[in-house]
């Protein structure tokens, strides 16, 4: 890592550590949301940016993590830590089942199958009222001890997401990640080098699901609630927009995308009820002006 990059990272780290502490509880909540969605978008980019797999159902794993936490705490009285640990596990199990079938397909067929499975999870969340609370969702989840304070929980989420993103960084630069890029470029070629490409994509799908589940769990514990809307198909579009906005060929692109997206959404929705219209226009403008994403044009092929 060069001195400039190290400097930039230090400034960013300091900013992330200190900035939200001076803000009120509302902005701390928004900052948590941005962090959580940064992790969620990054998990999605493992599939799209690195693996070339466009999933239309990534919200399923965010939702599984969130419902995992909600059901464990609200219905089974599990402690906070156990519930949080379970979030990525539950999501990984779901992703393993869906991925097993989905990675047999590619392109639009892969997208459609992941989409169909997500609708399945959504329907279950909506109809299995005893467990999920149906349309009303699960509410009243509480955090233990000092974590009740939004500022402390922000630092907690910052620590967890930084750790998770560090793991992801390690992974995409590992032989596994390098092979995944090669599969994105030319799966058949990789096959003929002796790699079981389908198994490779399956594991990637499971890992991406686990990280999305962790994000979902963290978010459920931030809002204290879980709603079926988190599993809806529109929720799967969010990480797609964030990733494309931030730059899908840059490792940190999804972080930028998530922060810009959440920031815009928060500011604009505070001013007008037509905020989706303004969001749409701004996103279209950004995508047209910065086709490689917000970070894409500057960093070139950092994440290639």
């Amino acid at each position: 890592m060069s001195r400039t990059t190290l400097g930039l990272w230090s400034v960013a780290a300091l900013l992330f550590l200190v900035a939200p502490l001076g803000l009120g509880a509302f902005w701390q909540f928004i900052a948590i949301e941005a962090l959580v969605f940064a992790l969620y978008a990054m998990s999605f980019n493992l599939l799209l940016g690195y693996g070339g797999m466009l999933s239309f159902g990534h919200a399923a794993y965010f939702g599984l993590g969130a419902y995992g936490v909600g059901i464990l705490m609200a219905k089974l009285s599990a402690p906070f830590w156990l519930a949080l640990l379970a979030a990525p596990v539950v999501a990984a199990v779901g992703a393993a089942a869906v991925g097993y079938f989905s990675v047999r397909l590619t392109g639009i067929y892969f997208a459609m199958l992941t989409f169909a499975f997500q609708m399945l999870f959504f329907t279950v969340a909506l109809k299995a009222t005893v467990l999920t609370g149906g349309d009303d969702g699960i509410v009243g989840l509480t955090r233990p001890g000092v974590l009740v304070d939004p500022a402390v929980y922000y630092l907690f989420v910052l620590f967890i997401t930084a750790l998770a993103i560090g793991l992801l960084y390690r992974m995409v630069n590992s032989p596994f990640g390098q092979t995944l890029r090669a599969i994105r470029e030319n799966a058949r070629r990789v096959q003929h080098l002796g790699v079981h490409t389908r198994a490779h994509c399956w594991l990637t799908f499971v890992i991406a699901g686990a990280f999305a589940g962790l994000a979902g769990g963290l978010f459920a514990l931030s809002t204290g609630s879980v709603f079926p809307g988190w599993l809806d198909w529109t929720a799967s579009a969010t990480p797609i927009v964030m990733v494309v906005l931030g730059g899908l060929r840059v490792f940190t692109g999804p972080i930028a995308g998530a922060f810009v997206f959440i920031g815009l959404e928060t500011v604009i929705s505070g001013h007008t009820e037509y905020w989706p219209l303004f969001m749409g226009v701004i996103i279209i403008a950004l995508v047209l002006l910065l086709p490689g994403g917000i970070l894409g044009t500057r960093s070139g092929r950092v994440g290639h």
Partner: protein
Amino acid sequence: MSVTDSRPGDAAAPEPLLRIEALGKRFGGLVALDNVTIRLQPGEFRAVIGPNGAGKSTLFNTLTGLHRPDLGRVFLSGTDVTGRTPHALARLGVGRTFQITSVFAALTSLENVQIALLAHSGRSWNVLASARSIQVTRARGLLDLVGLRDREDQLAGTLAHGDQKRLELAIALATEPKLLLLDEPTAGMAARERLESIALVHRIAREVGLTVIFTEHDMAVVFAVASAITVLHQGRVLAEGLPEEVRANPVVHDVYLGETTSDDAAGQERA
């Protein structure tokens, strides 16, 4: 130019490296391969020729696991490998290159070769090591072998066509195959470049003791390097033998070599 180490189909020969027994493959009503039997001795540099649609690509795709044959068996050093998957066959030592150049365009030349080395050493599942530093020396050695050492940091997609072909060869060699299948290794090249290119492959194959089977449309290329030639026609083996035997075969002349001049001209127009 060079002559075979042993005649194909010689009864006294040891177990062939590749033994294809009565292979059959059909797609709907089309018979792509019909009772194809080929034996390949270690060290051979075998050309498979035939007009378009003769079954060359189907043969290659069946040998590398993309198609499952309807009939017949394939043995690799005596082991029945019929119907194995592409990655399993690759791990057993069957390497290949593609008619349409298949490099990883968004990665550098060095990374292209590194990926093949990772795959070969079974490290493609390692999620924690750093990929950048893995087997750099060996990867550079392979780039050196094909004459791309000074292009290691260039994105493969930006290399000239001939260089991409050479990179693809380095990728294939990185997996240390016992048997290498080259699907039209000189496709899209200018006439002079073709001979240089195949001479490079031929030299490397000699050096590392590789057995090669290749398809090729340019007869100058075929007769320059092939140790033996198999002629496919309408999915069948029409003739097989040393280059001079095939050249002298009147049947081959009628169905194929007779049209060489026109085919060659077409090839040069394309290039």
